[in-house]
């Protein structure tokens, strides 16, 4: 339905072949055992996707937000939770550094992250600072040539497996006095806390990062002190556009699975596809998916063309997250009893989709962002 360039087609073909071979066959088992697909992650550098937005000089692919989103979608058709970890690495860590770090910092960290030697993540959320992120309490105090970090981050994707984290911490009493640091897992005073058990996205490890007088060299401060807000905002917009690709992938698989099923399953002497109620539901699912794709691709293109309006990510993510949950629920309903069992993947699609309405800013925060702009309200 959509028209892609030859390069985009080639990228999609490569990624799809990889997903079908390395992700799809393992997705069910990894969900069941709540394990990270490290084999697949190790192969991602060969596809050139770990630094998809990063400049070529550091091993990146130098592509745009649209390509990154398409890759997320294609991979998520097979295993959304592996893609969530991929996104935390590639967008939250690698792209954050690409956009905000100094040349020296980039030279030090990007090559290992992009070649897959290190796994990256990002630490923003805290137990008492979720949607209200400016209330974060993790503190960084400068002592000589070091910053001393104290506090706890939670709900961190890749927390239990990451090597390098981009971490936000408070450097002053004002709400907006936040700074960005690069923290390696073997820095003194850093440890990972408990791994969290989740409803879905179970192959993507989530956990706490704990800082107890954690010593971070001053050279690992990203940008100037107290400048984090602009780092965050820039990266959150990219995150919200590209994460929409995950929602699209989940919805697309839900629809594909449903279509096969209703064409084969017979009840009352005909296939489910021959019932008008089934046709209406499938058409609605397809319509929602195409609407989500159209919206997301348009927002990604706008971003690539230089538009930095925070509504790009908010619109794409708000619509696609809700759409993915709805379409996955519809798929379960079409499969009936079968859809509810773990023998069929659609219940996993739904559990994975639900997180899309929460992570990277909840639906409510997306609506708030949109409303503020639409209504001209101040923060």
């Amino acid at each position, binding site marked *: 339905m959509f028209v892609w360039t030859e390069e985009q087609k080639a990228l999609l073909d490569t990624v799809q072949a990889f997903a079908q071979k390395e992700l799809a066959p393992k997705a069910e088992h990894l969900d069941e055992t709540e394990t990270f697909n490290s084999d697949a992650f190790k192969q991602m550098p060969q596809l050139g996707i770990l630094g998809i937005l990063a400049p070529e000089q550091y091993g990146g692919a130098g592509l745009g937000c649209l390509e990154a989103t398409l890759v997320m979608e294609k991979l998520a058709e097979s295993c959304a939770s592996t893609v969530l970890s991929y996104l935390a690495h590639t967008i939250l860590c690698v792209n954050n550094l690409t956009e905000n770090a100094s040349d020296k910092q980039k030279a030090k960290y990007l090559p290992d992250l992009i070649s897959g030697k290190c796994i990256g993540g990002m630490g923003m959320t805290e137990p008492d600072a979720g949607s209200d992120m400016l209330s974060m309490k993790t503190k960084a105090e400068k002592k000589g040539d070091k910053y001393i970090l104290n506090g706890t981050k939670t709900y961190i994707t890749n927390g239990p497996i990451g090597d390098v984290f981009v971490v936000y911490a408070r450097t002053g009493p004002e709400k907006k006095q936040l700074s960005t640091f690069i923290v390696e897992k073997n820095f003194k005073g850093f440890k990972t806390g408990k791994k969290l058990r989740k409803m879905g996205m179970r192959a993507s490890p989530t956990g706490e990062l704990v800082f107890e007088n954690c010593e971070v060299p001053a050279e690992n401060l990203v940008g100037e002190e107290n400048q984090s807000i602009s780092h965050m905002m820039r990266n959150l917009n990219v995150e919200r556009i590209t994460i929409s690709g995950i929602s699209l992938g989940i919805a697309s698989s839900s629809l594909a699975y449903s279509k096969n099923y209703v064409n084969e399953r017979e*009840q009352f002497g005909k296939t489910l596809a021959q019932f008008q109620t089934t046709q209406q539901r499938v058409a609605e699912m397809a319509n929602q998916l195409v609407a989500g794709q159209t919206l997301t691709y348009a927002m990604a293109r706008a971003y690539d063309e230089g538009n930095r309006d925070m509504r790009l990510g908010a619109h794409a993510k708000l619509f696609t997250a809700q759409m993915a949950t709805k379409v996955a629920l519809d798929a379960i309903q079409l499969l009936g009893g079968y859809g509810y069992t773990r023998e069929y993947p659609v*219940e996993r699609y739904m559990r994975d989709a639900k997180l899309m309405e929460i992570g990277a800013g909840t639906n409510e925060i997306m609506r708030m962002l949109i409303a503020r702009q639409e209504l001209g309200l101040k923060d």
Partner: protein
Amino acid sequence: MPFRYYPEAGLDSDEAKTRSTVRALVDKHIRPTIGEDDRTSQFRRSTFEVFAREGFGAIFINAALGGKGLGYESYYAAIEEVARGSVSLAITLGVNHLPQGALVQFGNPDQIARYSKRFGSGELLGAFSLSEPNAGSDATGLILAAKRDGKGYVLNGTKAWCSTAGFADLYLVMARTGPDRSKGITAFLLEKDTSGFRVGKQEKKMGLCASPLGELIFENCQVPDSQRIGEEGMGMKVALSQLDGGRVVIGVIGLAIAKECLERLWSLGKKEGESLAPGWQARSAYWYARAQALHSVVHQVALSKNRGEPITALAAQIKLLGSDLAMEVSSGVVEALGTRGVLREYEVERLLRDAKALQIVEGTNQIQQLVLAREMEAMQS
């Protein structure tokens, strides 16, 4: 604190007593273990027995036959209170009452004498099996064969999605004894040790994890006449007589999920001393209004059931609205709680996974709409 719903249980002393007894049992015996049971897909017979010892294994069979002899207000109240702690166990208890209903309604005196007291004491746990791999929504498409053979029947075939399979002692099974889609079906009450009968694979599910669901396999399974419930060919009538009640149970469980999630939203969804965000206040007010309406309709259907009136339309309405409300509220509250919403320790995600099943079991919601439309057509003519 729980929100208030009218009529309050206090209007009927049995119901009030049932609610407080069950609530105490739920707090003591279910809440501490349900997280683990959900995670490990474990059914605890011992928890069922705790409820059975208090008479909740056979709530509406009358006392002379060994049951607790309560009315349907109390039955639905008990199911609702159990579901707040464990949707899985509420399903087990609800399903357990289906063969009991068939027994007292269609069984002969011998059969009632043989089984009702043992249901009452909790010695027996019952199951109900209608669905087959190729007969889900299309129930009368079932093909499990029951061939006449001397003084009994020989059963061959497979049943699917039987709740409590493998843990139940007595199974109400619908099988085919003739070619007529509906009138060629006969009901049997099968003991678990019957030769030629075994339980096949246990399903792994998205939710209802502490409620087993499995296949039943019949290989030259010999069933004597004495296990037939009702006459030959009456099986669909027997099944349908229980399905309406079963649908109310599903709707009531949906109501329980909605009520439980609403309370979690108001306790977890705001910081200490602050009020709930206005957007969530508005949404939860609307959910509360719908839960209240449904709560009242459940009392209405209980009264009808006590009087022995047909409840087909009401049951379909309750199942449809209750399961949809459960899905909407649990999904909304997961979202409202943010990341805590999807974490297993906060339990709302479990309620959401459980809620989805309610739109599918006891006839999908699409089937409920067909049933209702048929009832509406009948009212027109």
